[in-house]
């Protein structure tokens, strides 16, 4: 099938690869610009900055209170990961093992928060959270971020649990395992790889989740991505290199976790596993 190729087909293939190459090249150059600028002293009308320095990292650390922001970010992300596992995994187990009436409706209920963009449901959600005095602090940020995360864990875990043979659990029952022992020694070890993958994906998504955090965060509950937005928004107040130093710190926090996640999941899973469900 791949043997006969006309000139037209070759040109077409070259054009496609060229397009991919230009895309990746521009993206890499954009990231490189940010990194170089964060280490540059003065970059004006030249290909590269006049000299290199690390002082912007120190000034960014102090100016943007990155110490506090990073702690808030990790607290929020940790809480979201933990709670979405506690709520999501049991629900996925129920949906994978039982075929109760109304199951399709429940699946649809879990699909909606992922398919509806956060901007659209974020404003009504923030209104409700502020009225119950949960907006503007950490609990509000965590609750808002859980709205897409819990369904995400459920939908990633359902196919994973379905492929585990229920007879393994039946066998454990036959040998006298109670519900507690069954859960601790059979179900949990079998589910561990799937849970790990799902939670890593939630972690990466939550670090980068801008809209919901932006709508619900108060002064003391900003995560890194929201702090970065405010810094770029008020550009001119601080040195541009300082903002880029923060951007580099943000990139490192995200990419470290992405690298870890990519060891356990297929890259396409970050966007597609859930969307497949929508097509079915």
């Amino acid at each position, binding site marked *: 099938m*791949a043997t006969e190729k006309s000139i037209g087909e070759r040109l077409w*293939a070259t054009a496609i*690869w060229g*397009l*991919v190459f230009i*895309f990746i090249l*521009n993206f890499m*150059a*954009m990231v490189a*610009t*940010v990194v170089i*600028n964060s280490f540059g002293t003065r970059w*004006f009308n030249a290909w590269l900055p006049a000299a290199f320095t690390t002082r912007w990292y120190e000034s960014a650390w102090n100016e943007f209170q990155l110490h506090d922001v990073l702690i808030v970010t990790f607290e929020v992300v940790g809480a979201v990961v933990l709670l979405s596992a506690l*709520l999501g995994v049991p*629900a996925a*187990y*129920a*949906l994978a093992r*039982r075929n*109760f*009436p109304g199951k399709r409706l*429940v699946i649809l*209920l*879990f699909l909606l*928060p992922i*398919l*509806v963009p*956060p*901007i*659209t*449901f974020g*404003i*009504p959600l923030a*209104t*409700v959270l502020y009225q119950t005095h949960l907006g503007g602090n950490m609990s509000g940020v965590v609750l808002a971020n*859980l*709205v897409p995360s*819990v369904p995400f864990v459920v939908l990633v875990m359902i196919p994973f649990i379905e492929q585990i043979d229920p007879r393994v659990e039946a066998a454990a029952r036959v040998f006298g395992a109670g519900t507690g022992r069954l859960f601790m020694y059979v179900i949990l070890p079998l589910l561990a790889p799937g849970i790990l993958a799902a939670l890593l994906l939630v972690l*990466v998504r939550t670090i*980068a*989740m*801008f*809209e919901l955090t932006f709508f619900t965060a108060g002064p003391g509950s900003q995560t890194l*991505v929201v702090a970065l*937005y405010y810094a*770029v928004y008020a550009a001119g107040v601080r040195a541009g290199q300082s*903002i*880029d130093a923060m*951007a580099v710190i943000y*990139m490192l926090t*995200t990419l470290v976790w*992405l690298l870890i996640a*990519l060891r356990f999941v*297929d890259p396409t899973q*970050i*966007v*597609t596993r859930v*969307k497949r469900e*929508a*097509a079915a």
Partner: protein
Amino acid sequence: MSKRATGTVVDPTPFRVRLALRDLDGVTLLALPAVLFVVTLFIYPFAYGFVLSFQPKAGNWLANYTKFFSDPFLYDTIGATFRLAIPATLINVLVSVPVALRVRRMRYRRLLTAILVIPITLGTVLVAEGLLIYLGPQGWFNRVLFIIGLGKIRLVHNYTGVMLSLILSGFPFTFLLTLSYLTGIDPSLEHAASTLGAKARARFVHVLLPLLAQGLAINLCLSFVQTFSVFPSAVLLGAPAGDTRVISIAAYQAAYEQYDSSMASAIAMIMGFCQLVVVVLILSGRSLAYRGAVSGGKG
């Protein structure tokens, strides 16, 4: 008659067993906390916002909506959003098909997909900050254009900047989605067409495209909905008071600058409605396409 007769007979099976026969038992209850959570923090706020949008600060129950559709500063945001979302969605989805067709047989597919996941993971705020410098008047992009002899072009703080950021963070998403649909199609179907003498173009038009139509429709819906709710890049890279004043900016300003949560909810509802209309249009177009198995086999 017979109904009354069965009603008087006491069913010997206990209620719990009857429920369990319909798969309603302790295990089913495990889904309850998550369901309650989504209902309280997704369904309820949406319903609350819908009701709140009809309780304006002043005027009759439709005041928010009449205000929105009579003030050009507000209703123009719908047009501005469509002008960004439709071209960006079409470019991303249409380009993703030929690229995915090439990539699916590539040896380093996993490496390429891993690279393309990075822009999605970094998110729109970082892409906006990066593009501000990279595409800016002093940035590398404009320097290269200048050397080639195209002169300097203004690429940020306008429509172009937002469009480029929508492509940069949107294309990887649509591409990965198309790729996953394409790899789900059984290659033996294409082999069969090839054996029967179909050239590449014919194989694509008559075999792959009908099988892919479903996935492309879903892909169009998802990327449209995403681009329609563009927010950080429209503020940071665009002209938020000018031609990239998208509907999410109007909603944000109503909520956090005028503290009018009723008006903000109304704008959020209008935004949701626009998305719903386009999704319904795309999906109703889909029903004209082939709907069948993508995995061949001995049927």
